[in-house]
């Protein structure tokens, strides 16, 4: 009896009132549905694509991620300058993010699903996303029970820069310098990786096969 009443406590019906705002469930459901369609159509939620990225065989992630990062950066900063949206900056804790990122990447290489992609893979029918999702929950519980506020946690969260951006650190008066540099780098990377994936990979294999023919 207690369990059911506590389960009912966790749901707050006032979250269903409107579409806007950070606590609205309808907004999350709408954005999640669109994101699921994009993840599935972009061929992102597959083990072979994630693992192929680390094995340097499948460049789908780079080819989707590069236009994503540059277009979203330009649009978000444009809307921020126009006063429509506000930035929501993550905290920068250098050592924690280095070590946590290495652990995250190692787990990603083994299991092949990152938190959003596991949900997409489950919708696509890959049932091995279920133990991965159970693992995410277990990892969060282990962090909260064992690791949080231990000695190691306090040591590695010592260098805490707070919610900063690059233009705050380097005291650049206009952030569009950084954005233009990033966009130029992204365009060059995207052209290179698309050429390799569409065209150069096939020509390399043709050259390899013909030279093998001549060796005989």
């Amino acid at each position, binding site marked *: 009896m207690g*369990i059911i009443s506590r389960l009912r406590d*966790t749901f707050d019906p006032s979250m269903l009132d409107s579409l806007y*705002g950070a*606590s609205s469930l309808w907004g*999350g*459901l709408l954005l*999640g*549905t*669109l994101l*699921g*369609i*994009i*993840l*599935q159509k*972009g061929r992102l939620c597959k*083990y*072979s694509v994630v693992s192929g*990225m*680390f*094995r340097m065989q*499948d460049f789908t992630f780079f*080819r989707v991620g590069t*236009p*994503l990062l540059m277009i979203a*950066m330009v*649009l978000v900063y444009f809307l921020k300058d126009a006063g429509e949206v506000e930035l929501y900056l*993550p905290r920068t*804790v250098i050592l924690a993010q280095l070590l*946590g*990122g*290495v*652990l*995250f*990447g*190692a*787990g*990603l*290489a083994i*299991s092949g*699903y*990152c*938190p*959003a992609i*596991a*949900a*997409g*893979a489950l*919708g*696509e*029918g890959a049932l*091995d996303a279920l*133990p*991965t999702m159970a693992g*995410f*929950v*277990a990892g969060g519980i*282990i962090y909260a029970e064992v*690791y949080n506020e231990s000695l190691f946690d306090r040591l590695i969260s010592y260098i805490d820069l707070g919610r*900063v951006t690059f233009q705050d650190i380097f005291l650049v008066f206009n952030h569009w310098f950084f954005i233009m540099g990033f966009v130029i780098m992204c365009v060059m990377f*995207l052209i290179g990786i698309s050429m390799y994936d569409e065209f150069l990979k096939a020509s390399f294999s043709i050259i390899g096969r013909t030279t093998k023919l001549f060796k005989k």
Partner: protein
Amino acid sequence: MLFLRRKTWWPVIAGIGFALIEVASFYISRRPLGASRGYTVIGSIIEYVLMPKHAAKVTYWQVYEPYIEWTIALLVGIVFGSFVSSMLSGEFRLRVVPEMWRLSKGPSVWKRWYWAFIGGIMVGFGARMAMGCTLGMLIAGVIQLSPAGFIFMMSLWMGGANMTVLFYRLKTLALMKRD
């Protein structure tokens, strides 16, 4: 609705769509997309439902309160959207072991699920350590020009590439298969 019935989209088109969703998230929900918070809140809910006295003592659950919230709705939406999309293009099919894993590690189901669970624990723990996952830290950090996103991007790549070499023992690097 012909474009929804296609199996794949060209990657740049998918990237532009993803960027528009990210901007729409800033506009509608006043925050960037993020997924790993949802799993932590699910863990918090499980502890609150099963043992409420113990859960009240854990300081970390003061930050991640046991209420169903935006990121859980986002995860449900991702499952639903991916299901609808794969049904429309006829790609939906239940599978327990991915094709590439079968080529490099064998067809055993228990081995795959065991390693998926271990990898999931590492991903969940690392995401809590870095305070975000690929959506909430990498993409949201990079597009707001925060150093956190760039640090996380580099360290994720280092950990993933080295672990691939260690775990798959380099001998399957030449396999080219897609499922």
